[in-house]
């Protein structure tokens, strides 16, 4: 009995440590401009960060903890707290995940392989470029995790062909897998539907800055960054892995022999793609009036009515922990705003900037990108955006900067810090194949982050302020 309990205490030690820390912060006397409620929110934020990093409990449990503490610490009435959990963004995240399952269930992976065969022939450089671009373009709409699931078998077949041609080659073969992981991760900011983190930022802009950005406007702002990053990713990979001029000989015949002949698009495939196109068009056209979430649900409804998705698939294959967790961290972000905790943090940050004599120029942008990247690397991008979003938007108010630009810096920075297998869903899925070493993520991620840092700074200095004037 005791042994069992002691084991549980040890196994979940970070939960107890986080609880203790939250209680200490909560019971500290309030000081300065930070209200007692603001201090309580920061206590919950500290606890959430520890729980997200060390995962002593399952994801939805973190949400329960946040909900219970928000009520116990007196941030609002139970009804207010529960209401703060539900928003259009949460429905949008859940709907996008369900749509992604519908796409994964089709036989798109085999078609992708045949498409790459036809497109690239036996050139290894063209194949890597093809995998990066194809993965990226799909992930920019469908969500990186579903694209990683679709493209992982394609990459593993490429690894097999490479090994048959060139044997064990000091790890060059893993370039195909890494292309999928980073291609998907890099493109996951292209549209709001590409990742849950994007929906969080949309919610914050709307709620905290009064900035109502639609699906199409997001694409106008963010997609150029993806289009610049994808070729850069290819160059980074080619430089690190140096596959040389070696070819993937007998690529087409191998694929036909091992995978079978190319099948035509089935009715279900056409219906699924058609529904996806309709949903994206609706997101671009009517989401400002009816919201992103309801449009996603229309797509899900169409999938279920046409039989390309059934409810069993939805219950089994959607990671419900994600919308539940994001519902709670969005709630926490909103309480950070309303209790003044975000403003207090922004003031502190501004004071530090003044002390360092950093104004509005390049050093300021550089610093924000760096903070976003570091937080994203530690917490993973979603929670990083959820917790830093209100602070960045208050920072924009305090410094007179454009909230759109600062929000985009946060989204891009937090999403481009993929140093570990757990930094993004795509990286985790590819790591799960067991064919990519942990240190490869650091090797590629660090170089890509350095390139991304420069690209984001350029976008934040020139492109985003330019488009912000027109939105």
């Amino acid at each position, binding site marked *: 009995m005791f042994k069992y309990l002691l084991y549980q205490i040890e196994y979940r030690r970070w939960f107890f440590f986080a609880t203790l820390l939250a209680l200490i912060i909560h019971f500290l006397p309030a000081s300065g401009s930070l209200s007692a409620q603001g201090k309580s929110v920061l206590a919950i934020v500290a606890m959430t960060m520890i729980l997200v990093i060390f995962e002593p409990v399952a994801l939805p449990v973190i949400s329960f903890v946040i909900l219970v503490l928000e009520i116990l610490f007196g941030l609002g009435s139970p009804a207010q707290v529960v209401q703060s959990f539900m928003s259009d963004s949460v429905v949008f995240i859940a709907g996008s995940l369900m749509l992604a399952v519908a796409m994964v269930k089709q036989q798109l992976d085999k078609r992708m392989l045949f498409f790459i065969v036809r497109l690239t022939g036996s050139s290894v450089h063209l194949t890597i470029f093809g995998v990066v671009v194809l993965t990226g373009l799909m992930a920019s709409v469908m969500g990186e995790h579903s694209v990683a699931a679709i493209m992982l078998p394609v990459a593993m077949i490429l690894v097999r062909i490479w090994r048959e041609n060139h044997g064990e080659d000091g790890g060059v073969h893993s370039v195909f897998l890494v292309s999928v992981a980073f291609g998907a991760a890099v493109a996951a900011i292209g549209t709001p539907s590409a990742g849950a983190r994007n929906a969080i930022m949309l919610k914050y802009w709307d709620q905290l800055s009064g900035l109502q950005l639609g699906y199409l406007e997001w694409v106008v702002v963010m997609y150029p960054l993806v289009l610049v990053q994808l070729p850069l990713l290819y160059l980074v990979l080619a430089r690190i892995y140096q596959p040389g001029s070696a070819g993937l000989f007998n690529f087409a015949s191998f694929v036909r022999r091992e995978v079978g002949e190319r099948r035509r698009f089935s009715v279900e495939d056409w219906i699924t793609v058609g529904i996806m196109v309709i949903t994206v068009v609706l997101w671009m056209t009517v989401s400002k009036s009816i919201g992103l979430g309801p449009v996603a649900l229309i797509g899900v409804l169409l999938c279920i009515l046409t039989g390309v998705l059934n409810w069993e698939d939805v219950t089994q294959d959607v990671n419900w922990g994600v919308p539940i967790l994001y519902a709670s961290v969005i709630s926490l972000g909103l309480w950070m705003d309303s209790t003044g905790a975000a403003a207090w943090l922004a003031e502190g940050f501004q004071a530090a900037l003044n002390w360092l004599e950093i104004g509005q120029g390049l050093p300021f942008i550089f610093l924000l990108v760096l903070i976003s990247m570091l937080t994203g690397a530690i917490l993973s991008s979603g929670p990083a955006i959820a917790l830093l979003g209100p602070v960045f938007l208050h920072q924009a108010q305090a410094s007179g900067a454009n909230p759109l630009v600062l929000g985009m810096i946060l989204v891009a920075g937090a999403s481009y810090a993929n140093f570990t297998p757990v930094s993004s869903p795509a990286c*985790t899925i590819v790591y799960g194949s067991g064919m990519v070493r942990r240190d490869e993520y650091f090797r590629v991620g660090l170089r890509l982050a350095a390139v991304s840092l420069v690209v984001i700074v350029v976008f934040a200095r020139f492109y985003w302020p330019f488009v912000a004037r027109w939105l």
Partner: protein
Amino acid sequence: MHLLVCIGGEQYSRDTLRLGSGLVRVLKADLTILYVRPAVSQHFRTEARLAREKLQDWPVESEDALMMKAVQRIMEEQGLVRMVDGKPDVQHLPRVEKAGLAECHLYGSAGQDLRIRVREGDIVQSIRRETLEVDYTLVVVGAPGHGSRLVRHIIQYTDPSVLIVKNPRDVQSYRMLLCLSHSAAALKAQDFAVRTALLLGMPVDLLCIHSYPWEENGAMSLAEDTRRLLKRFDIPHTIRVRRGAVVRTILKEAQPEHLIVMGTSERSSIYQFFFGSVPVEIGRRGKNTVLVVK
């Protein structure tokens, strides 16, 4: 007898597996090899499972399948698997069991059951789940180095006897260093050690440690009783009676060829939680393989 050998993907796991297989060959025991795959972050576990399911439609081998093949190859090299027409005698090929557990079932050369199982997650928790489902005699785990929390958790929180493998050698080249005291747990260790030494043909170095001069007679009589037992079964042995701190003395007496055998601590779980125990300290600080009999 049923042994559970727990491995990860590292080099020391290969050595642990070789030692475990060697033991099973001699003891003709049933063997389950548990490969614990590192857990995917909870954030993306559903997505990772979905991707793995997708891979099953493709002519590519998953990490689990590759690991199972590697383990099977090592067992075949050790002459542990029954071969029929040059192929291993398989009861069932790798298949997914309940709760994400994958299993492959083979027949051993002595007719025993050989299972290769794959789980995902924390190694200690996986062992606990496994030992709750099946009644194992001994759990064999490799220890990566000094001061490992893993060693403490395994010794403290698993129910069957535990063999912590460090710097492994061929089974037949070991000598047993049997550490005894008057405790009931030590007597259980003595019983287990005598039976094992008999089966493996292993010489025994008996070590009785006392902390104070007035305990010397007790230690001497304990050594004499055990000597008689070892002599009765014709097990080659030496006797050492030493005075000093228990952990330090055991570590000082242990030679590279020694397999240290000792009973579990009789202190309460809470005491061990805060202050540790002799087996844990030997497992953490020593360079020898340690068998903790429970």
